[in-house]
């Protein structure tokens, strides 16, 4: 059986080559936001690329600081989302990782993760003079007929928008395949996290973060499913990833992509990072709906950041129970306003349940906002609380 490492390398290569190949063959390329219903676009023959994911690659390659500074020179405020700053700063940047993303023919953005993406893509559309389609998800659709109809109508408009600009039609059998693979990949992604429900944990949270790319950028493909199946197989044969005596911790929110380990120091065998809930945000629920479009409505309206505050708090409660967690490190990621707004109620909820927590202020991709000594102090103080 092919190793997970080898499959992941192929997924990376295929993804970055697909853009260049598409441009060469005259195939339309779209930049899409993270929780766009990519299945619809791929079923219409569009090659989809994720600027947010590319910003992560730039941060992990230690290029984000330069790119953000370059963006600032172009009169952007430092307070903007660092992903968007990297995106703008990567324009005209020499020696881009993977040669950079090719120019898009269209842009698709959604507001089921944040409001910034729409503004960012809107600005990109103006700068590049290309069409933009925006999908609005007011809340998780659930059983609400009105909401489902509202989103379904937007999907129809999206299809018409793509057809208008490419003359491509939807391949419905391709759509079904995509949705089936997405559903399967998300199930496998959930299974990987579930490995850490056992004590000791089976797979490091940092290793899960490093396995994120396929669920983000290759959701809806056979390759993503193959990768996660291989990873689960390998993990089940390897030894535990922690000790039974470890204090089990949750990292709430985004990793810090510019750090080699993606999380600051301070976690070890005694204080183990068992789960990062950000990676679980990608465990989209495609449900068991009667049609592919209905499945997509359920999945993409039900993204974590689109939930109500109470739903988010209940979810964290459940994670603490399911994963037997003893404390929570909360990353106050200054780039993500939507996630920042939840921190005080989350701290209050955890305190009521006598779960210690600590807030670490930094950023997902801008190392200028990473203050190592301050973070160390907070982590050390937090560990003092957790010591029995």
């Amino acid at each position: 059986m092919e190793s997970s490492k080898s499959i992941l390398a192929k997924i990376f290569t295929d993804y970055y080559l697909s853009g260049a190949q598409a441009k060469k063959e005259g195939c339309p390329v779209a930049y899409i936001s993270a929780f766009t219903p990519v299945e619809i676009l791929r079923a219409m023959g569009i090659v989809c690329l994720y600027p947010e994911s590319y910003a992560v690659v730039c941060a992990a390659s230690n290029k984000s600081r330069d790119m953000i500074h370059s963006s600032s020179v172009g009169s952007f405020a430092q307070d903007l989302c660092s992903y968007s700053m990297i995106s703008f700063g990567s324009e005209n940047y020499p020696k881009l990782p993977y040669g950079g993303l090719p120019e898009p023919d269209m842009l698709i953005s959604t507001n089921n993760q944040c409001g910034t993406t729409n503004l960012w893509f809107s600005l990109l559309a103006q700068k590049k003079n290309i069409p933009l389609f925006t999908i609005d998800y007011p809340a998780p659709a659930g059983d609400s007929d009105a909401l489902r109809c509202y989103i379904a109508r937007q999907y129809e408009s999206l299809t018409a928008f793509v057809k208008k600009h490419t003359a491509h039609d939807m391949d419905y059998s391709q759509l079904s395949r995509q949705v089936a693979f997405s559903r399967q990949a998300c199930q496998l992604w959930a299974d990987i996290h579930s490995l850490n429900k056992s004590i000791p944990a089976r797979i490091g949270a940092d290793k899960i973060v490093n396995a994120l790319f396929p669920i983000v950028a290759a959701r809806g493909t056979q390759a993503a499913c193959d990768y996660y199946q291989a990873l689960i197989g390998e993990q089940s044969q390897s030894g535990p990833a922690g000790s039974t005596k470890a204090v089990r911790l949750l990292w709430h929110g985004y990793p810090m992509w510019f750090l080699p380990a993606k999380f600051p120091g301070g976690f070890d065998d005694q204080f183990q990072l068992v789960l990062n809930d950000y990676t679980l945000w990608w465990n989209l629920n495609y449900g068991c709906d009667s049609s592919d479009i209905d499945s997509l409505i359920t999945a993409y309206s039900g993204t974590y950041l689109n939930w109500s505050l109470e739903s988010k708090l209940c979810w964290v409660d459940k994670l603490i129970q399911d994963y037997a967690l003893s404390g929570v490190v909360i990353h106050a990621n200054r780039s993500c306003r939507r996630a920042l707004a939840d921190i005080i109620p989350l701290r209050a909820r955890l305190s009521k349940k006598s779960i210690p927590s600590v807030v670490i202020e930094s950023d997902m991709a801008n190392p200028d906002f990473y203050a190592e000594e301050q973070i160390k102090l907070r982590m050390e103080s937090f560990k003092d609380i957790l010591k029995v």
Partner: protein
Amino acid sequence: MQYYLGIDAGSSYIKLVLIDGDENIVGRHIVPRGADINASCREGYSGLLEKCRLDESAVCGIVATGYGRKQVSFCEKAITEITALAIGGFSIDSNAEIIIDIGGQDSKIIVMDSAGKVMDFAMNQKCSAGTGKFLEVTSASLGVTVDQMDVLSQKADAILSLSATCTVFAETEIISHIAKGEKKENIIKALIVAVASQIQGLFAQVSPGKDGKILYTGGVSQNQTLKKELSVRLNRDIVVPEHPQHIGAYGAALYWKRNKENQTTPF
């Protein structure tokens, strides 16, 4: 007699406390922090020994805390300010449930249980809003000392609001108020209120009991106007202990003494 030394290597001052085997404070000392933290701590240590007429050989344990704690080369152990303040604060007042500490660089709210164990804490964000540094920098813009700010603020006769909590932006606002002919006293009061507002926000991040006693420590706690403003905003009595700047150093000294004697501490 054996003695134990606690050093709080803060961002503005080095505070030192020496205790004896019965946990009595036998000496306190404070020196400004120089560029070389270790050298400043050494200087403070020598000064304290001289004050107490003791020799280094009488000191059987040294624990450092504070932002420069890891720079202190001659200590046995370094502990965080949160731990040190909780031990020190609880030891001087076992009814204390909350400690508010406003230091030069960090502001902290510490919540303890009835045994003095830290249950929760919150610290200021990366910027200096709500810290002693904020008052230090802004007072310099007004040509007064931090100590003078207290007296002057009590003469304020109008309520000004500062829209910026950022130290740098606040300076700009100060200049603008001065240009408009605003009274210095009113500007100072507005600066103190801005710090209180930051601490109030920090307080909201932890969930202390409704009636717990609050100890207010750190150099800034000597500012009466800020203490009063905090008390009103938090709707609680706030107690400033004697020598509020030395509570962290005292806690550090106690930490070593108690651990050395294998006494159980909640830490």
